[in-house]
């Protein structure tokens, strides 16, 4: 009897709960996504893989679920690296709830607790983000408040500790080198066009913003007097008039000795500016940037991209084809001067060169050099970039002769008729591999690269795509003499050829076969073929990709942040879906 009463009670309660919750549930939505990337590794003496180091399988997976209800949203993300795939950081190995958050935002005030992804301005002093393909996540676990007190005015405050692989957030563990500090930041932005009624539809556009971010860290060093509070501030302005747009941001950071800058006590600076003009059929943009000692991490011993509080965007063309993307520039936070010019133009339809569909042209040029550093006085002696000193002085507009990178490229994209479409690009590249990838003593890569991408539509559903690519180095050829001891530095160097044939049946299937061949490597044993075969199946938001073959040693970059991928051979599978 008691049991029956309990059931009735429960039913009554749930019924009333349901009635009360009806309006709540009516607007509820659950959505999410899953992805698993797995690779099965095999021995392949042909490309020098004679030992798998006990690792036959690498699996990276995540699943996330979001719940939203009107102004409220919450989510969790679960991650599993069992173990991590080759080329990902070993510290990722593990399984767990990596991320959770809850947000309430009614337009006037927004509050988030949990893991926060946000950025101030262009990110020069604060950006937390996540990039699955790089195994990179510097989410800030803490709280954020966003206030919009008046139209066009946004105020933000964030507070928290950054994600460091699987390290716990609560207790710091100095035994495992986890000296993570706390990150705090505020940002204000004022959009005059939204604020001032008279400017609402004006051709003149203006918005300004400013931010301040500081980290509070614990000094664990026996050698250096590490500052416990390091502040950084930035100011920005965006202007527009008709077809012109101009934006700039300047950031300043006080002394912040760290493993990245060799423990110097110099202040840091960053300046970015861009000017663009666009009208239908034509667009041009010029960007410049100066970075000086701007690595900003919440742990002064942090390596690589660990615990970055800020983000220094590289301003280069992002190549996505196999050979052009082999040498991708990554930001040098200790110092760089960079410029980029890009012009997009469409030769109009109906002209002799434009044809029926118009011809799309893109020109891009970017270059990065080092900044100029002068010695500072250290006692009675002079010192340059010596730890424990002010490091160096640097004239703001001086450009060093040391060039890190240059890329000049031209692309033509042409739909010839209903069935044929071609894209072709020529690239002239200069890549200081010693600075960018840390291969000491390696000769600079100076190369000409070309690709041709031809698509032929067989019928409404089926198409064929052929990609031909070549990379030719100016100096490092087959005949280039390599000392036995330096051999390793010449992996992937010299000339390459690449071909890919893809057959696709829209909307579900794609079959492709590719060969990447390092035929012109100066070291004979590196003149390898890297064959891969790939099958992709797509159904709405689900993608399954199975590929088998060899992967060459290389660098995978997203957003200027890169990870190196070792050469491998085997079978890999990617499954992703969202709902």
């Amino acid at each position, binding site marked *: 009897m008691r049991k029956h009463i309990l059931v009735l009670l429960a039913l009554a309660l749930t019924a009333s709960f349901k009635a009360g919750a009806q309006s709540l549930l009516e607007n509820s939505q659950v959505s999410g996504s899953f992805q698993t990337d797995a690779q099965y590794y095999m021995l392949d003496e042909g490309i020098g893989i004679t030992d798998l180091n006990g690792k036959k399988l690498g699996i990276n997976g995540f699943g996330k679920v*979001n719940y939203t209800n009107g102004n409220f949203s919450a989510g969790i993300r679960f991650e599993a690296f069992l173990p991590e795939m080759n080329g990902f950081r070993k510290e990722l190995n593990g399984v767990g709830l990596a991320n959770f958050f809850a947000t309430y935002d009614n337009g006037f005030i927004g509050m988030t607790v949990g893991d926060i992804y946000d950025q101030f301005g262009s990110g020069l002093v604060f950006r937390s983000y996540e990039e699955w393909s790089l195994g990179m996540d510097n989410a800030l676990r803490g709280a954020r408040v966003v206030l919009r007190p008046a139209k066009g005015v946004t105020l933000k405050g964030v507070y928290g500790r950054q994600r460091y692989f699987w390290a716990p957030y609560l207790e710091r563990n100095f035994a495992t080198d986890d000296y993570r500090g706390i990150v705090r930041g505020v940002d204000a932005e004022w959009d005059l066009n*939204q604020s001032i009624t008279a400017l609402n539809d004006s051709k003149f556009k203006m918005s300004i913003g400013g931010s301040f971010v500081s980290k509070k860290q614990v000094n664990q060093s026996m050698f250096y007097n590490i500052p416990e509070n390091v502040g950084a501030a930035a100011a920005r302005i965006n202007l527009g008039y008709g077809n012109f747009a101009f934006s700039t941001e300047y950031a300043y950071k006080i002394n912040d000795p760290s493993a990245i800058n060799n423990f110097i006590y110099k202040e840091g600076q960053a300046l970015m500016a861009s000017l663009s003009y666009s009208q239908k059929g034509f667009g041009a943009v010029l960007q410049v940037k100066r970075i000086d000692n701007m690595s900003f991490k919440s742990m002064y011993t942090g390596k690589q991209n660990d615990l970055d509080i800020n983000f220094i965007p590289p301003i280069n063309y992002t190549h996505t084809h196999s050979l052009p993307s082999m040498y991708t520039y990554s930001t040098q936070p200790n110092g760089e001067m960079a410029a980029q010019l890009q012009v997009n133009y469409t030769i109009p339809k109906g002209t002799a060169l434009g044809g029926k569909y118009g011809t799309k042209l893109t020109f891009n040029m970017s270059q990065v050099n080092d900044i100029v550093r002068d010695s500072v006085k250290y006692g009675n002696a002079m010192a340059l970039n010596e730890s424990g000193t002010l490091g160096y002085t640097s004239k703001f507009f001086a450009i060093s002769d040391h060039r890190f990178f240059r890329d000049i490229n031209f692309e033509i994209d042409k739909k010839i008729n209903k069935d044929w479409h071609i894209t072709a690009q020529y690239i002239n590249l200069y890549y200081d591999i010693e600075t960018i990838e840390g291969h000491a003593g390696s000769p600079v890569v100076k190369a000409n690269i070309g690709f041709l991408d031809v698509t032929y539509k067989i019928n409404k559903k089926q198409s064929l795509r052929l990609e031909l690519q070549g990379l030719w180095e100016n100096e490092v050829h087959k005949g280039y003499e390599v000392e036995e001891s330096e051999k390793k530095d010449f992996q992937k160097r010299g000339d390459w050829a690449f071909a890919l044939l893809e057959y696709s049946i829209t909307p579900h299937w794609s079959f492709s076969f590719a060969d990447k061949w390092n035929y012109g490597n100066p070291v004979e044993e590196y003149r390898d073929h890297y064959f891969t075969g790939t099958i992709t199946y797509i159904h709405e938001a689900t993608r399954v990709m199975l590929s088998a073959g060899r992967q060459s040693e290389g660098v995978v970059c997203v957003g200027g942040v890169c990870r190196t991928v070792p050469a491998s051979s085997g079978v890999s599978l990617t499954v992703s879906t969202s709902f």
Partner: protein
Amino acid sequence: MKKLMTLVLMALVFSGLHAQSKSDLPNVTLKDLNGKDVNISKLSNNGKPIVITFWATWCGPCIKEHNALNDVYQDWQDETGVKIYSVSIDDSRSTAKVKPTVEGKGWEFEVLLDVNSDLKRAMNVSNPPHTFLIDGNGKIVYQHTGYFEGAEDELYEEILKIAKKKK
């Protein structure tokens, strides 16, 4: 008995969860190319279909998809009144390039900037291109990831289905 209670409870909760919601579009505000705020949950096209497609200036297949969509956009608009919102997930390294790229390529879509990937996360997009079709009631009726030649025809068939329903 406990099991039964649990089942009853679960059934009730789930029946609630399955109740029809108002709009599938998240409460995220993005800026358009003129700097104006656009709240995604309030997007409307007078009951006609909306396409939201995610892309980036550095994404080859996305550019192909956009070019293909742009070639047919005028016809699609005339026939169904569909409106295409093109969401760029370019971050600060390439946001300055978005407008010159869009104009330079002559695309006619409404372009929105998702600089902080807020909408990308809220709509569970893993990799661009990723395209959503939204009906007149704000419901996501179709989505597709990746781009193969001719995929726009498939999308158009789906657009026609919901455009016809309206009549």
